[in-house]
């Protein structure tokens, strides 16, 4: 199929439909409303369900209902809207329901700004809602990758019976890049014999997250814990850049900032400074093992984020602080430039020399 030039938000919308996400609920919020606008036109063409709900609170509970009835469903929103969905997300995780939630992250906290940010890392990766749960979290760094991750997200949601988040910054949503919608093959999924879709010929099914008996609640917690451990074993995805030859420093960055680091690496190479990059594609599970290996030859690691340094904590955990882990970031909707990132590497290398 020929490539088409598409805005990230619209490409995500189209890919969601092609992945069988034929039930979509939404509430408008910048910078992702184009997804809803696109799907309001497109869903009727494919016989799918589109509904603009009264709030993100309602929308996320619509997901709970539809997912519980065995319907492949999804929503998109941006940071403040995602916060409103946290209660339902916790219920969805507890009831083990599959759905996909796309967060086109904007600057925060509070109402914040509408420009790109990566400030929702912790909310996505560590929970966000109450209780002991996790989401599988993907972070695309191009429009094409966002398109490719949608079918995978739906598949994994169904396979693990777990909510899957796709985290893109405003840049991924607003930028136009050429995309190709490629067919992806997945092994067949288990039947949704747990769904509340009418009890004909079987005992009634219940979608529930209430366990007043502490022993039963503990059993659920442990079952979920095992599921998250399986994800950590089987679902880690990352990209390496420039790791094939010796390097002095290692960037760790995801999404748009990873691309900025790549340009910084090229600029630094022109000056004879070799730097490599590890780009997590899954934020949970985090590519800790590979990061640990790649950290070994580096003098230091540099986490580059559009936040005050959130992934930074996971990098330090993964490497057990064996190497210095530094941070460089911009906040508030400002995006670091390759030049400032490269300068930071040079500054750190210079001060390291001074230390000796």
């Amino acid at each position: 199929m020929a490539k088409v030039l598409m805005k990230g938000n619209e490409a995500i919308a189209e890919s969601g439909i092609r992945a069988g996400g034929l039930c979509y609920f939404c509430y408008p919020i910048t910078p992702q409303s184009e997804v809803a606008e696109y799907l309001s036109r497109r869903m009727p063409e494919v016989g799918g369900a589109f509904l603009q709900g009264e709030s993100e609170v309602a929308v996320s509970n619509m997901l709970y209902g539809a997912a519980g009835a065995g319907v492949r469903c999804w929503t998109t929103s941006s940071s403040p809207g995602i916060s409103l969905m946290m209660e339902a997300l916790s219920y969805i995780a507890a009831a083990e329901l599959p759905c996909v939630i796309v967060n086109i992250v904007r600057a925060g906290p509070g109402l914040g700004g509408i420009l790109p940010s990566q400030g929702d890392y912790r909310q996505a990766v560590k929970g966000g809602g109450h209780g002991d749960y996790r989401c599988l979290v993907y972070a695309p760094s191009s429009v094409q990758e966002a398109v490719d991750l949608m079918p995978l997200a739906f598949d994994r949601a169904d396979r693990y019976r777990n909510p899957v988040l796709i985290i893109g910054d405003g840049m991924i949503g607003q930028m136009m890049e050429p995309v190709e919608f490629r067919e992806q093959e997945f092994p067949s999924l288990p039947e949704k014999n747990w769904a509340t879709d009418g009890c004909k010929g079987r005992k009634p099914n219940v979608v529930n997250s209430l366990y007043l008996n502490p022993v039963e609640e503990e059993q659920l917690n442990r079952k979920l814990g095992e599921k998250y451990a399986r994800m950590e074993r089987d679902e880690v995805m990352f990209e390496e850049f420039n790791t094939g030859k010796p390097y002095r420093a290692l960037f760790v960055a995801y999404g748009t900032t990873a691309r900025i680091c790549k340009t910084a690496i090229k600029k630094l190479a022109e000056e004879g400074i070799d730097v490599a990059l590890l780009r997590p594609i899954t934020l949970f599970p985090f590519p800790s093992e590979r990061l640990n290996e790649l950290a070994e030859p580096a003098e230091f690691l540099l986490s580059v984020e559009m936040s005050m340094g959130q992934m930074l904590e996971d990098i330090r955990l993964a490497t057990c602080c064996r190497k210095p882990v530094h941070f460089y970031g911009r906040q508030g909707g400002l995006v670091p430039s390759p030049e400032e990132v490269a300068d930071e590497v040079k500054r750190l290398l210079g001060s390291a020399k001074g230390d000796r």
Partner: protein
Amino acid sequence: MQTEAVFAGFGGQGVMLAGMVLAETGMNLGREVVWLPSYGPEMRGGTANCTVIIADEPIASPIVLHPRDIVAMNRPSLEKFCGLMRPGGYVVVNKSLIAVDPDRDDVRVVNVEANRIAIEAGSAKSANMVILGAYVGATGVVPYEALVETAQTVLKKKPKLIPVNLKCLEQGFELGKQARAD
């Protein structure tokens, strides 16, 4: 090889569309492209700009602090972006609305009266096509024929507008080419 151009102007001057036509032309030629808008309140009638990157290799950073070229449809845009350009780049200036000259001597200036040409061609709204033509004429970043083909495809839902837009594109292109020769 990678070129970056910022198309900037008032909201409504069609700079986003001009950039999109350029990006789509690059894509049709099999090259790597990114079209990155500034978005936000400035979408609502204030200044608007987009960055178009065309490259032979996968594009790393979509953010460009120092673009090679600038296409300025109004004075605030020229003032905002001209200082950021890399030396040796092209700055295309809409002389219909910008009385001043760029205050740099290390960049190549292409002056185009985009609004006047568009009005004379019969569509005041097509000034964006004049300046896009001029940009391509001056830089040769994509072949003219490919640009025309893309513009026709983009406008296929409004066939009546095709002739006047192609006329604007062509007149701009000729001016750009001349400026390059100079």
